[in-house]
């Protein structure tokens, strides 16, 4: 069983479109994250969310929004896609207590044409 699963694996779309990436975890964790990895492999935190608090990286454009229908899901919606949004997006989860480490999904390769 996959612990953190993301869909789709690949997403190719045109500039200006709106798209979503889905993430589900079956680990019973209470905190989920979205990271963006650029072409140089740099990981940038976008959002952190648990049932109490959404923490947003202030550098993330408001075209990006997380949506959590329940504790096991954290989807990423992106409006008006731009060329610079092309990257690999990773979902991750952890237990709220620190020191547990993160469990990552396998990533979604987003290409904006």
């Amino acid at each position: 069983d996959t612990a953190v699963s993301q869909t789709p694996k690949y997403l190719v779309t045109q500039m200006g479109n709106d798209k979503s990436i889905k993430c589900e975890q079956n680990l019973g964790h209470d905190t989920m994250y979205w990271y963006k990895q650029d072409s140089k492999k740099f990981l940038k935190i976008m959002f952190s969310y648990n049932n109490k608090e959404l923490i947003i990286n202030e550098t993330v454009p408001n075209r990006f929004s997380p949506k959590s229908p329940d504790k096991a899901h954290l989807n990423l919606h992106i409006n008006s896609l731009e060329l610079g949004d092309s990257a690999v997006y990773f979902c991750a989860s952890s237990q709220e207590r620190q020191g547990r480490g993160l469990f990552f999904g396998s990533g979604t390769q987003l290409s904006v044409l």
Partner: protein
Amino acid sequence: AQSVTQLDSQVPVFEEAPVELRCNYSSSVSVYLFWYVQYPNQGLQLLLKYLSGSTLVKGINGFEAEFNKSQTSFHLRKPSVHISDTAEYFCALDEVGGSYIPTFGRGTSLIVHP
């Protein structure tokens, strides 16, 4: 503010040779430290972590790391690498009592040659 510095962006090594990937950190409070590995086209996977206690931490796939508080370092080592260890390695830290968002280094690409 906390930070993580991985001093080498790329480390080439021959198979069966030892390797050390360097990580230094900066924080004004106590920290938890982690190493993650990312194989090509995959997500990150936790290799090992230091929370407290013994400064030498053993992880999966024969890797180990040593926490050195005076030098603010957490270097990753393996005595003999395999071709399959070729991957990107990330050092990360959590500040004790801080947010639940770890700070990642920029990654080190380990390239193992036959």
